[in-house]
């Protein structure tokens, strides 16, 4: 199959871009920038997982991607909830 090579290339590209998104996590001037970096990186990783499962042609592998989708959302929700509580108390970030 010739699409395997294309899938591989896109996979490498997505890994590189998720590494680049780390810039916002590390040097983001404000807190929402850091959260944005996490959001972007988790979306890219989701795409990589789906690409690999499609390359191996095993549908049970896609469970991992679905679980990852759910848990990235819950993680971001927990982080913002924590920040909102801390901000209401008047602490700094």
């Amino acid at each position: 199959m010739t699409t395997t090579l294309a899938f591989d290339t896109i996979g490498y590209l997505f890994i590189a871009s998720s590494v680049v998104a780390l810039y916002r996590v590390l040097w983001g001037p404000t807190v929402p920038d850091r959260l944005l970096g996490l959001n972007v990186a988790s979306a890219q990783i989701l795409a990589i997982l789906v690409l690999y499962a499609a390359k191996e042609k095993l549908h049970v592998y896609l469970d991992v991607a679905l679980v990852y989708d759910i848990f990235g959302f819950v993680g971001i929700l927990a982080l913002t909830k924590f920040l909102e509580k801390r901000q209401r108390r008047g602490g700094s970030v």
Partner: protein
Amino acid sequence: MIEGIVYLFLLLAAIFNLMGLVGILLFPDPYTRLQASSTCSTTAVISVFIAVMLEAGFSAITGKVLVITLFFFISSPVGAHIIARYAWNMGIVPWRKLRKSSLEDLPHD
């Protein structure tokens, strides 16, 4: 035929991904960066899903990827909304163009 469409969607994914990254790196404030991520990066990921669905044809993979796509359709904008709402409640002022923009000339009512 179908392979051509798959390649087209993968190309679209690559372009949108790179441009979204450029937007995330270059834009001036959190709201505009969120715009870049929530349109361009989401479109890139969904293009990948569409390409995978077209490549797999009618099989169990397509059903699973369909579920993931529907989940992503909900979870990505809601995640962007949560972050934007946090920034808005925190009191971050949106960036505005400094020089006198052409907006003042537009019809106000």
